[in-house]
Protein backbone atom coordinates (compact mmCIF):
# COMPACT_ATOMS: atom_id res chain seq x y z
CA UNK A 1 0.00 0.00 0.00
CA UNK A 2 2.78 2.43 0.87
CA UNK A 3 2.79 5.23 3.37
CA UNK A 4 3.44 5.18 7.08
CA UNK A 5 1.19 5.85 10.04
CA UNK A 6 3.36 7.09 12.84
CA UNK A 7 3.88 9.70 15.55
CA UNK A 8 6.56 11.28 17.69
CA UNK A 9 7.70 9.36 20.76
CA UNK A 10 5.89 11.68 23.15
CA UNK A 11 2.56 10.48 21.78
CA UNK A 12 3.56 6.95 22.79
CA UNK A 13 4.68 8.16 26.21
CA UNK A 14 1.40 9.97 26.84
CA UNK A 15 -1.11 7.59 25.32
CA UNK A 16 0.06 4.09 24.39
CA UNK A 17 -1.59 1.31 26.36
CA UNK A 18 -0.35 -1.41 23.99
CA UNK A 19 3.34 -1.40 23.06
CA UNK A 20 4.62 -4.05 20.66
CA UNK A 21 8.29 -4.55 19.80
CA UNK A 22 8.81 -6.66 16.73
CA UNK A 23 12.21 -8.05 15.73
CA UNK A 24 14.14 -5.77 18.02
CA UNK A 25 15.99 -5.92 21.30
CA UNK A 26 15.71 -2.47 22.86
CA UNK A 27 16.97 -3.66 26.25
CA UNK A 28 20.41 -4.05 24.70
CA UNK A 29 20.31 -1.85 21.58
CA UNK A 30 18.19 1.17 22.62
CA UNK A 31 18.37 0.94 26.42
CA UNK A 32 16.43 4.11 27.19
CA UNK A 33 13.63 3.35 24.75
CA UNK A 34 11.80 1.55 27.57
CA UNK A 35 12.62 3.99 30.34
CA UNK A 36 12.47 7.40 28.70
CA UNK A 37 9.99 7.06 25.85
CA UNK A 38 7.74 4.08 25.43
CA UNK A 39 7.20 1.76 28.35
CA UNK A 40 8.05 2.96 31.85
CA UNK A 41 7.26 6.69 31.85
CA UNK A 42 4.06 8.01 33.32
CA UNK A 43 2.12 9.74 30.58
CA UNK A 44 -0.69 12.23 30.44
CA UNK A 45 -3.28 9.54 29.71
CA UNK A 46 -1.42 6.57 31.18
CA UNK A 47 -0.77 8.06 34.62
CA UNK A 48 0.50 4.83 36.15
CA UNK A 49 3.16 4.35 33.53
CA UNK A 50 4.19 0.73 33.09
CA UNK A 51 1.11 -0.54 34.95
CA UNK A 52 -1.17 1.08 32.38
CA UNK A 53 0.56 -0.55 29.43
CA UNK A 54 0.74 -4.03 27.98
CA UNK A 55 4.04 -4.87 26.32
CA UNK A 56 4.33 -7.63 23.75
CA UNK A 57 7.58 -8.77 22.20
CA UNK A 58 7.66 -10.68 18.92
CA UNK A 59 11.02 -12.22 18.08
CA UNK A 60 12.67 -15.41 16.95
CA UNK A 61 14.64 -15.82 20.18
CA UNK A 62 14.32 -14.88 23.78
CA UNK A 63 16.48 -11.78 24.16
CA UNK A 64 16.91 -9.79 27.40
CA UNK A 65 14.02 -7.61 26.19
CA UNK A 66 11.67 -10.55 26.83
CA UNK A 67 12.06 -9.97 30.57
CA UNK A 68 10.31 -6.62 30.17
CA UNK A 69 7.43 -8.10 28.19
CA UNK A 70 4.02 -9.12 29.48
CA UNK A 71 3.72 -11.49 26.55
CA UNK A 72 6.60 -12.91 24.57
CA UNK A 73 5.69 -14.46 21.23
CA UNK A 74 8.55 -16.55 19.93
CA UNK A 75 8.10 -17.21 16.23
CA UNK A 76 10.06 -19.31 13.77
CA UNK A 77 12.78 -17.50 11.83
CA UNK A 78 11.73 -15.85 8.53
CA UNK A 79 8.02 -16.18 9.34
CA UNK A 80 7.35 -12.52 10.16
CA UNK A 81 5.62 -11.80 6.88
CA UNK A 82 3.32 -14.79 7.32
CA UNK A 83 2.47 -13.74 10.85
CA UNK A 84 1.64 -10.17 9.82
CA UNK A 85 -0.50 -11.44 6.96
CA UNK A 86 -2.40 -13.82 9.24
CA UNK A 87 -3.00 -10.99 11.72
CA UNK A 88 -4.37 -8.80 8.93
CA UNK A 89 -6.73 -11.63 8.00
CA UNK A 90 -7.90 -12.22 11.58
CA UNK A 91 -8.50 -8.55 12.11
CA UNK A 92 -10.71 -8.46 9.03
CA UNK A 93 -12.40 -11.69 10.11
CA UNK A 94 -11.10 -13.60 7.11
CA UNK A 95 -10.47 -17.36 7.21
CA UNK A 96 -6.93 -18.44 8.06
CA UNK A 97 -5.06 -21.49 6.74
CA UNK A 98 -4.00 -23.62 9.76
CA UNK A 99 -0.97 -24.89 7.82
CA UNK A 100 0.40 -21.34 7.65
CA UNK A 101 -0.35 -20.75 11.32
CA UNK A 102 1.66 -23.89 12.11
CA UNK A 103 4.62 -22.56 10.10
CA UNK A 104 4.70 -19.40 12.21
CA UNK A 105 5.23 -21.39 15.37
CA UNK A 106 2.32 -19.90 17.33
CA UNK A 107 -1.15 -21.23 18.00
CA UNK A 108 -4.20 -19.71 16.38
CA UNK A 109 -5.35 -18.75 19.91
CA UNK A 110 -2.17 -16.76 20.49
CA UNK A 111 -2.65 -14.92 17.20
CA UNK A 112 -6.34 -14.29 17.90
CA UNK A 113 -5.47 -12.98 21.34
CA UNK A 114 -2.91 -10.61 19.84
CA UNK A 115 -5.34 -9.38 17.18
CA UNK A 116 -7.96 -8.88 19.85
CA UNK A 117 -5.59 -6.86 22.04
CA UNK A 118 -4.64 -4.73 19.06
CA UNK A 119 -8.25 -3.91 18.24
CA UNK A 120 -9.15 -3.23 21.86
CA UNK A 121 -6.17 -1.01 22.62
CA UNK A 122 -6.94 2.68 23.04
CA UNK A 123 -3.62 3.58 21.46
CA UNK A 124 -1.40 0.88 20.05
CA UNK A 125 2.11 1.13 18.71
CA UNK A 126 4.42 -1.30 16.92
CA UNK A 127 8.17 -0.62 17.00
CA UNK A 128 10.01 -2.75 14.51
CA UNK A 129 13.70 -3.51 14.40
CA UNK A 130 16.26 -5.04 12.11
CA UNK A 131 14.96 -8.52 13.02
CA UNK A 132 12.02 -7.63 10.83
CA UNK A 133 13.46 -5.26 8.25
CA UNK A 134 16.81 -6.96 7.62
CA UNK A 135 15.77 -10.60 7.46
CA UNK A 136 14.13 -12.58 4.66
CA UNK A 137 11.48 -10.40 3.08
CA UNK A 138 13.29 -7.19 4.20
CA UNK A 139 11.35 -4.11 3.04
CA UNK A 140 8.35 -6.34 2.21
CA UNK A 141 8.13 -7.18 5.91
CA UNK A 142 8.29 -3.50 6.90
CA UNK A 143 5.64 -2.62 4.32
CA UNK A 144 3.35 -5.40 5.58
CA UNK A 145 3.72 -4.24 9.17
CA UNK A 146 3.05 -0.61 8.23
CA UNK A 147 -0.06 -1.75 6.37
CA UNK A 148 -1.24 -3.70 9.41
CA UNK A 149 -0.83 -0.57 11.55
CA UNK A 150 -2.71 1.57 9.01
CA UNK A 151 -5.55 -0.95 8.77
CA UNK A 152 -5.95 -1.09 12.54
CA UNK A 153 -7.05 2.54 12.41
CA UNK A 154 -10.41 1.29 11.17
CA UNK A 155 -10.88 0.02 14.75
CA UNK A 156 -8.74 2.14 17.02
CA UNK A 157 -5.71 4.40 17.09
CA UNK A 158 -2.60 2.56 15.92
CA UNK A 159 0.85 3.65 14.78
CA UNK A 160 4.16 2.06 13.80
CA UNK A 161 7.75 3.24 13.89
CA UNK A 162 11.10 1.74 12.83
CA UNK A 163 13.72 1.47 15.59
CA UNK A 164 16.44 3.34 13.75
CA UNK A 165 19.97 2.61 14.91
CA UNK A 166 23.16 4.43 13.97
CA UNK A 167 22.82 7.81 15.65
CA UNK A 168 21.87 10.36 13.05
CA UNK A 169 20.91 8.02 10.21
CA UNK A 170 17.47 9.65 10.33
CA UNK A 171 19.01 13.08 9.66
CA UNK A 172 20.56 11.71 6.48
CA UNK A 173 17.15 10.58 5.22
CA UNK A 174 15.52 13.88 6.12
CA UNK A 175 18.15 16.07 4.46
CA UNK A 176 18.38 13.98 1.29
CA UNK A 177 14.61 14.25 1.00
CA UNK A 178 14.54 18.03 1.03
CA UNK A 179 17.64 18.43 -1.15
CA UNK A 180 16.97 15.65 -3.67
CA UNK A 181 13.39 14.43 -3.12
CA UNK A 182 14.56 10.93 -2.18
CA UNK A 183 15.73 9.49 1.15
CA UNK A 184 18.84 7.47 0.15
CA UNK A 185 20.60 5.93 -2.83
CA UNK A 186 20.43 9.06 -4.99
CA UNK A 187 22.36 9.34 -8.25
CA UNK A 188 23.26 12.92 -9.19
CA UNK A 189 25.45 12.08 -12.20
CA UNK A 190 23.00 13.57 -14.69
CA UNK A 191 22.72 16.82 -12.78
CA UNK A 192 19.35 15.98 -11.25
CA UNK A 193 18.42 13.37 -8.64
CA UNK A 194 17.54 9.84 -9.67
CA UNK A 195 16.48 7.13 -7.24
CA UNK A 196 16.54 3.42 -7.75
CA UNK A 197 17.25 1.20 -4.74
CA UNK A 198 19.04 -1.93 -5.87
CA UNK A 199 20.77 0.01 -8.63
CA UNK A 200 22.09 3.09 -6.84
CA UNK A 201 22.40 1.58 -3.37
CA UNK A 202 25.93 1.25 -2.07
CA UNK A 203 26.38 -2.50 -1.77
CA UNK A 204 25.01 -3.03 -5.27
CA UNK A 205 27.19 -0.25 -6.69
CA UNK A 206 30.30 -1.65 -5.04
CA UNK A 207 29.71 -5.28 -5.91
CA UNK A 208 29.07 -4.40 -9.54
CA UNK A 209 32.15 -2.19 -9.48
CA UNK A 210 30.14 0.77 -10.74
CA UNK A 211 31.89 3.57 -8.87
CA UNK A 212 35.44 4.74 -9.51
CA UNK A 213 36.06 6.62 -6.25
CA UNK A 214 34.47 6.70 -2.82
CA UNK A 215 34.12 9.04 0.14
CA UNK A 216 33.13 7.26 3.32
CA UNK A 217 32.07 9.18 6.40
CA UNK A 218 30.05 8.32 9.49
CA UNK A 219 30.32 4.61 8.65
CA UNK A 220 32.86 1.80 8.55
CA UNK A 221 31.87 -0.42 5.62
CA UNK A 222 35.35 -1.94 5.67
CA UNK A 223 34.27 -3.75 8.84
CA UNK A 224 30.68 -4.59 7.98
CA UNK A 225 30.06 -5.01 4.26
CA UNK A 226 30.29 -8.18 2.16
CA UNK A 227 33.86 -8.92 1.05
CA UNK A 228 33.33 -8.17 -2.68
CA UNK A 229 32.11 -4.69 -1.71
CA UNK A 230 35.16 -4.14 0.51
CA UNK A 231 37.41 -5.39 -2.28
CA UNK A 232 36.05 -2.74 -4.62
CA UNK A 233 36.54 0.01 -2.02
CA UNK A 234 40.17 -1.10 -1.75
CA UNK A 235 40.50 -1.10 -5.54
CA UNK A 236 39.29 2.47 -6.16
CA UNK A 237 40.68 5.59 -4.49
CA UNK A 238 38.72 5.86 -1.27
CA UNK A 239 38.63 8.77 1.15
CA UNK A 240 37.55 8.23 4.74
CA UNK A 241 36.57 10.85 7.28
CA UNK A 242 36.32 9.45 10.79
CA UNK A 243 37.26 10.32 14.38
CA UNK A 244 39.34 7.12 14.46
CA UNK A 245 41.46 5.22 12.01
CA UNK A 246 38.96 2.55 11.00
CA UNK A 247 39.03 -0.62 8.94
CA UNK A 248 37.89 1.49 6.01
CA UNK A 249 40.68 4.01 6.66
CA UNK A 250 43.19 1.20 6.26
CA UNK A 251 42.02 0.41 2.72
CA UNK A 252 41.71 4.09 1.79
CA UNK A 253 44.07 6.34 -0.14
CA UNK A 254 43.14 9.23 2.10
CA UNK A 255 42.05 9.32 5.74
CA UNK A 256 41.23 12.54 7.57
CA UNK A 257 40.62 12.46 11.31
CA UNK A 258 37.59 14.54 12.30
CA UNK A 259 35.93 15.73 15.49
CA UNK A 260 33.29 13.52 17.11
CA UNK A 261 29.62 14.29 16.45
CA UNK A 262 28.00 15.70 19.57
CA UNK A 263 31.13 15.26 21.69
CA UNK A 264 33.45 17.70 19.99
CA UNK A 265 31.50 18.68 16.84
CA UNK A 266 28.44 20.94 17.12
CA UNK A 267 25.35 20.86 14.93
CA UNK A 268 22.06 18.99 14.75
CA UNK A 269 20.93 15.37 14.89
CA UNK A 270 17.52 13.80 14.25
CA UNK A 271 15.90 11.35 16.59
CA UNK A 272 14.27 8.20 15.13
CA UNK A 273 10.91 10.01 15.11
CA UNK A 274 12.37 12.84 13.00
CA UNK A 275 12.62 15.43 15.76
CA UNK A 276 15.73 17.60 15.25
CA UNK A 277 17.89 18.16 18.33
CA UNK A 278 20.81 20.52 18.84
CA UNK A 279 24.19 19.05 19.78
CA UNK A 280 26.11 20.49 22.72
CA UNK A 281 29.71 19.36 22.48
CA UNK A 282 31.56 19.09 25.81
CA UNK A 283 35.07 18.86 24.39
CA UNK A 284 37.16 20.84 21.98
CA UNK A 285 38.70 18.60 19.36
CA UNK A 286 42.22 18.94 17.99
CA UNK A 287 40.69 17.84 14.67
CA UNK A 288 38.44 19.71 12.23
CA UNK A 289 34.76 18.75 11.98
CA UNK A 290 33.41 16.69 9.06
CA UNK A 291 31.43 19.75 8.05
CA UNK A 292 34.56 21.88 7.84
CA UNK A 293 36.54 19.27 5.89
CA UNK A 294 33.69 18.78 3.42
CA UNK A 295 33.33 22.51 2.94
CA UNK A 296 37.05 22.82 2.25
CA UNK A 297 36.92 19.94 -0.27
CA UNK A 298 34.04 21.73 -1.99
CA UNK A 299 36.00 24.97 -2.03
CA UNK A 300 38.95 23.21 -3.66
CA UNK A 301 36.70 21.67 -6.31
CA UNK A 302 35.00 25.02 -6.90
CA UNK A 303 38.39 26.40 -7.96
CA UNK A 304 38.67 23.81 -10.75
CA UNK A 305 37.00 24.16 -14.16
CA UNK A 306 33.26 23.62 -13.77
CA UNK A 307 32.07 20.11 -14.58
CA UNK A 308 28.52 20.04 -15.82
CA UNK A 309 26.35 17.13 -16.88
CA UNK A 310 26.83 16.27 -20.58
CA UNK A 311 23.71 18.11 -21.78
CA UNK A 312 22.29 21.04 -19.94
CA UNK A 313 18.67 21.80 -20.68
CA UNK A 314 17.07 23.82 -17.90
CA UNK A 315 14.55 21.09 -17.27
CA UNK A 316 14.18 17.53 -18.36
CA UNK A 317 11.73 14.69 -18.01
CA UNK A 318 12.79 13.06 -14.79
CA UNK A 319 12.81 9.64 -16.47
Amino acid at each position, binding site marked *: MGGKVTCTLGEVKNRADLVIYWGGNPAEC*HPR*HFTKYALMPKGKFVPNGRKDRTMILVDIRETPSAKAADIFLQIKPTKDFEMITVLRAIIKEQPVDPAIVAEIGLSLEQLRDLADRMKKAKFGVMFFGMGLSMTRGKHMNSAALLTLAAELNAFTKFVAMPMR*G*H*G*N*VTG*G*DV*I*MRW*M*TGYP*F*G*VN*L*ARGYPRFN*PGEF*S*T*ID*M*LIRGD*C*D*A*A*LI*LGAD*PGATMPQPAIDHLAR*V*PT*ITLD*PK*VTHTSRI*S*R*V*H*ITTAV*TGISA*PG*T*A*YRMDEIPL*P*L*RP*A*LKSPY*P*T*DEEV*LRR*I*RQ*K*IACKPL*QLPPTVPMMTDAE
Partner: protein
Amino acid sequence: MELTITKNATCTFCGCVCDDIELHSDGERITHTKAACVLGASWFKNHTAEHLYPDALIDGKPATVDEAIELAADILYDADMPLIYGLSNITCEAQRESVGLAEMVGGIIDSHTSL
Protein backbone atom coordinates in the same frame (compact mmCIF):
# COMPACT_ATOMS: atom_id res chain seq x y z
CA MET B 1 42.26 21.04 34.36
CA GLU B 2 39.08 22.84 35.14
CA LEU B 3 35.87 20.84 35.31
CA THR B 4 33.11 21.96 32.98
CA ILE B 5 29.53 20.76 33.04
CA THR B 6 27.42 20.56 29.89
CA LYS B 7 23.69 20.15 30.44
CA ASN B 8 21.07 18.88 27.98
CA ALA B 9 23.74 17.36 25.80
CA THR B 10 22.57 15.07 23.02
CA CYS B 11 23.82 11.52 22.61
CA THR B 12 24.06 10.30 19.03
CA PHE B 13 25.07 6.74 19.76
CA CYS B 14 21.73 5.13 18.90
CA GLY B 15 18.54 6.26 17.21
CA CYS B 16 16.98 7.39 20.50
CA VAL B 17 19.16 10.53 20.37
CA CYS B 18 18.46 11.38 24.03
CA ASP B 19 19.06 15.07 24.67
CA ASP B 20 18.97 15.16 28.47
CA ILE B 21 22.52 14.06 29.20
CA GLU B 22 24.77 15.89 31.63
CA LEU B 23 28.45 15.70 30.78
CA HIS B 24 31.33 16.50 33.13
CA SER B 25 34.61 17.07 31.40
CA ASP B 26 38.12 18.04 32.43
CA GLY B 27 38.85 19.54 29.04
CA GLU B 28 40.53 16.41 27.74
CA ARG B 29 37.96 13.73 28.46
CA ILE B 30 34.43 13.28 29.68
CA THR B 31 34.83 12.05 33.22
CA HIS B 32 31.24 11.56 34.22
CA THR B 33 27.82 11.32 32.57
CA LYS B 34 24.37 11.68 34.08
CA ALA B 35 21.22 10.18 32.54
CA ALA B 36 23.12 8.34 29.81
CA CYS B 37 22.55 4.60 29.38
CA VAL B 38 25.44 2.12 29.40
CA LEU B 39 25.92 2.47 25.66
CA GLY B 40 25.78 6.24 25.79
CA ALA B 41 28.12 6.51 28.78
CA SER B 42 30.78 4.40 27.10
CA TRP B 43 30.31 6.33 23.84
CA PHE B 44 30.97 9.61 25.62
CA LYS B 45 33.88 8.26 27.63
CA ASN B 46 35.49 6.55 24.63
CA HIS B 47 36.16 9.77 22.78
CA THR B 48 38.58 12.31 24.11
CA ALA B 49 40.12 15.58 23.04
CA GLU B 50 43.50 13.92 22.86
CA HIS B 51 45.50 13.86 19.66
CA LEU B 52 45.57 10.07 19.43
CA TYR B 53 45.47 9.68 15.67
CA PRO B 54 47.40 11.37 12.90
CA ASP B 55 45.59 14.38 11.42
CA ALA B 56 45.49 12.65 8.09
CA LEU B 57 46.90 9.68 6.21
CA ILE B 58 47.75 9.39 2.54
CA ASP B 59 48.48 5.85 1.41
CA GLY B 60 48.84 4.94 5.06
CA LYS B 61 51.49 7.58 5.79
CA PRO B 62 50.92 10.65 7.97
CA ALA B 63 50.04 13.78 6.00
CA THR B 64 48.69 17.23 6.72
CA VAL B 65 45.00 18.00 6.52
CA ASP B 66 45.70 20.45 3.69
CA GLU B 67 47.42 17.78 1.63
CA ALA B 68 44.67 15.29 2.32
CA ILE B 69 41.94 17.75 1.36
CA GLU B 70 43.78 18.64 -1.84
CA LEU B 71 44.07 14.98 -2.81
CA ALA B 72 40.49 14.19 -1.81
CA ALA B 73 39.26 17.04 -4.01
CA ASP B 74 41.36 15.75 -6.94
CA ILE B 75 40.09 12.19 -6.53
CA LEU B 76 36.43 13.19 -6.37
CA TYR B 77 36.76 15.71 -9.18
CA ASP B 78 38.52 13.26 -11.49
CA ALA B 79 36.12 10.39 -10.86
CA ASP B 80 33.31 9.65 -13.30
CA MET B 81 31.05 8.09 -10.72
CA PRO B 82 32.14 8.83 -7.17
CA LEU B 83 30.19 7.31 -4.31
CA ILE B 84 29.58 9.17 -1.05
CA TYR B 85 28.41 6.76 1.59
CA GLY B 86 27.69 6.58 5.31
CA LEU B 87 26.24 9.75 6.84
CA SER B 88 25.06 8.04 10.01
CA ASN B 89 27.37 9.31 12.65
CA ILE B 90 27.82 12.82 11.36
CA THR B 91 25.89 16.03 11.98
CA CYS B 92 23.05 17.24 9.77
CA GLU B 93 25.27 20.13 8.77
CA ALA B 94 27.89 17.67 7.50
CA GLN B 95 25.17 15.63 5.78
CA ARG B 96 24.02 18.74 3.97
CA GLU B 97 27.59 19.43 2.82
CA SER B 98 27.84 15.80 1.67
CA VAL B 99 24.77 16.10 -0.55
CA GLY B 100 26.12 19.37 -1.95
CA LEU B 101 29.45 17.70 -2.67
CA ALA B 102 27.75 14.74 -4.38
CA GLU B 103 25.87 17.16 -6.61
CA MET B 104 29.04 19.07 -7.41
CA VAL B 105 30.96 15.98 -8.51
CA GLY B 106 27.97 14.25 -10.09
CA GLY B 107 28.06 11.17 -7.93
CA ILE B 108 25.96 8.89 -5.81
CA ILE B 109 24.94 9.75 -2.25
CA ASP B 110 23.75 6.99 0.02
CA SER B 111 23.38 6.12 3.69
CA HIS B 112 22.93 3.13 5.99
CA THR B 113 19.23 3.27 5.13
CA SER B 114 19.95 1.45 1.86
CA LEU B 115 21.31 -1.63 3.64
